[in-house]
C-alpha cells in the first residue's frame, strides 16, 4: 500500500469508529454527562460547602479535573474494548484482516477512535461542569496533552481487553473491578496529603493518581505529584501497551486460529 492508501485505510477505521459511537450516542455520550452532573450536584453543591476548601480551592473546583479525566478514562477504554470485541464477536474484524491494512494501522485506527470518544466526552463533561463551577485553565498545554495521552493510554488498554475477551462479561470485568476502584482511589475527590503516610505510599502505586494530578495541575496549578514523573509514566505505559497490542495483533491472538 502506498502512503496515501495507508492514510485512507486509517481514516476509514477512524470514521467507522466515530460513526459507531455517535450512532449510539444515548449509550456513549449522554450517560457520562448525566452521571457527572449528578456528581457535581451531590459532591459539589450539596456536600461540598460542608467540606470547605481542599488545597486552597473550593471543593467543587477541586473535583472538576478529576471527574473530567475519569469520564475520559472510562469512555476511551470502553469504546475500544467493546468495539473491538464486537468486531470479533460479529466477525467483521475479518473485513480488515483480509485487506492489506497493516496491523499497526488497525491498532492506530481503533486507538484514534477511542481517543476521539474520550476527548469528546471530556469536552461534554467540561461544559456540564461550567454550570456548577467557575472552570479556569491554569495551563492549556498540560490540559490538552494529558487528556490526549490519557485517552490514548486507556484506548490501548481497552484494545488489549478486547483482544483477550471471549464474552461481553470479559469486556466489563476490568472497568468494574480494576479501572473504577483505581480511578476513585486516584485522588479525584481528595488530595493524598490528607491520607496517613502509609496510605499515601500505597496511593503512589496507582498510575491513575499521576494522571489526575497532572490534569488538576493544568486546571488549578496544584499537584501532589511532579509533572515530569506523570508524563514519563504515562508515555512509558503507552509505549509498553502499544508494543504489547501490536505483538498480540501480529500473533493473531484471539482472532486467528
Amino acid at each position, binding site marked *: 500500500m502506498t502512503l496515501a492508501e495507508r492514510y485512507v485505510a486509517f481514516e476509514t477505521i477512524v470514521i*467507522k469508529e466515530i*460513526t459507531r459511537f455517535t450512532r449510539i450516542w444515548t449509550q456513549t455520550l449522554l450517560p457520562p454527562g448525566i452521571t457527572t452532573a449528578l456528581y457535581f450536584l451531590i459532591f459539589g453543591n450539596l456536600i461540598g460547602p460542608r467540606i470547605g476548601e481542599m488545597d486552597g480551592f473550593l471543593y467543587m473546583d477541586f473535583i472538576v479535573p478529576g471527574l473530567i479525566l475519569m469520564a475520559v478514562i472510562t469512555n476511551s477504554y470502553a469504546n475500544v474494548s467493546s468495539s473491538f470485541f464486537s468486531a470479533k464477536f460479529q466477525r*467483521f474484524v475479518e*473485513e*480488515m484482516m483480509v485487506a492489506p491494512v497493516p496491523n499497526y494501522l488497525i491498532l492506530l485506527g481503533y486507538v484514534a477512535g477511542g481517543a476521539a470518544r474520550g476527548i469528546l466526552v471530556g469536552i461534554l463533561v467540561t461544559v456540564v461542569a461550567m454550570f456548577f463551577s467557575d472552570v479556569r485553565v491554569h495551563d492549556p498545554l498540560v490540559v490538552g496533552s494529558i487528556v490526549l495521552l490519557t485517552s490514548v493510554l486507556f484506548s490501548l488498554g481497552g484494545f488489549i481487553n478486547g483482544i483477550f475477551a471471549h464474552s461481553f462479561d470479559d469486556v466489563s470485568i476490568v472497568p468494574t473491578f480494576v479501572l473504577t476502584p483505581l480511578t476513585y482511589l486516584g485522588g479525584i475527590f481528595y488530595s493524598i496529603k490528607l491520607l496517613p503516610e502509609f496510605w499515601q505510599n500505597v496511593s503512589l502505586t496507582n498510575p491513575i493518581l499521576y494522571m489526575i494530578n497532572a490534569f488538576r495541575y493544568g486546571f488549578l496549578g496544584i499537584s501532589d505529584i511532579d509533572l515530569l514523573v506523570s508524563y514519563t509514566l504515562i508515555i512509558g505505559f503507552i509505549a509498553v501497551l502499544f508494543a504489547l497490542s501490536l505483538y498480540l495483533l501480529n500473533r*493473531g491472538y484471539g482472532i486467528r486460529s
Partner: protein
Amino acid sequence: MSHALSIQQLTKTYANGLRALKGISLNVSEGDFFALLGPNGAGKSTVIGIICSLINKTAGRVAIFGHDIDSDFGRAKACLGVVPQEFNFSMFETPLQIVVNQAGYYGIDRRRAHERAEKYLSQLHLWEKRDVSSRMLSGGMKRRLMIARALVHEPRLLILDEPTAGVDIEIRHSMWRFLREINARGTTIILTTHYLEEAEHLCRHIGIIDHGQLIEDTSIKELLKRLNTETFILDLERPVDTLPDSLDRDIRLIDPTTIEVDVSRDQPINHVFADLSSHDIRIVSMRNKSNRLEQLFMRLVGNGEGEARSPS
C-alpha cells in the same frame, strides 16, 4: 498460463493436535472457475482461511498471482476478494457503509469508494437498500451484500465459500448468472458449494479434499467421463402401475408417470426407447438426472463401507 492461486505442501495442525491439512498442493489457472469440494471437516474452510490470512498455516507456501501471502502480503491481498460462508459484517451498518468502508481498507478514497459501491450494489440489486440497516436484509440480500463487498476493490481472484447456501432457487440462478458474467470478464473464481449441481453447472475444474488431502484435481469433463453410466428421467404418456418383468433393464418406477433408467455409456439410448416401445410404454419427455457429479463425489470420498459423508 499463469496461476491465480498456487498452493504448495500446505499443512495445518491446530493447537488441539488436529491435522486439518496434510500437505496439499494445488494450482488454479488465471481465468478459471474452480470448484473446491469435500465432505464436512475435510479441510476446505481451513484452506480458504489460510489463503485469506484468517488462519495461520503450519507449513507450506501460498501465492496469489505470484505474490506470496507471507512475504508480499499487501499485493497478495489486493488481488483477492472473499465471500465467506457466515455473515461477517456489522448488522448495525448499512450496505453502503459496509461496502464503502471495505473499499477504504484497500486504500480506495471515499469518492471512488462511493462510485464502486453504487456500481456493485446496483449490479447485485441492492442499491435501493443501501441505507437500510443490514440486519433488516433477507438472507439472500445479505449474501449478495457480501459479494458486492468482496468485489469493491475489483480483485482478480474471488473466493466464494458456499455463496448460495440457504437462498431460494431464483436468487441462486441470478447469482450464477452474475458469477458467470464476472468470470467471463476475467475474474478467476474459486467456489465451495454444498450443491454439486452448482459446481457442475458453473465450474470448469474441480478439486476434492478429503481428510486434509487433495484426492482429485481435474476438469469437470474428465471427471464426468469416469462415470460408466448415465441416469435419465423419462416421463410417460400413460400411467403404469408396475413395470413389466420382461423389461430386462435397470429401470425404476418413480411414480406412475415417471421412470428412471441407467444407461451404459457404450450403449445407444435408442435401444432403451425401442425396449420400452415394445412393451407399449411411450415416452413424452426425458431429461438427465443432474446428480452425476454427486455419484462421483460419493464414490470418491466414500469410506469404503458404502457410506459417504455429505459434501459441504
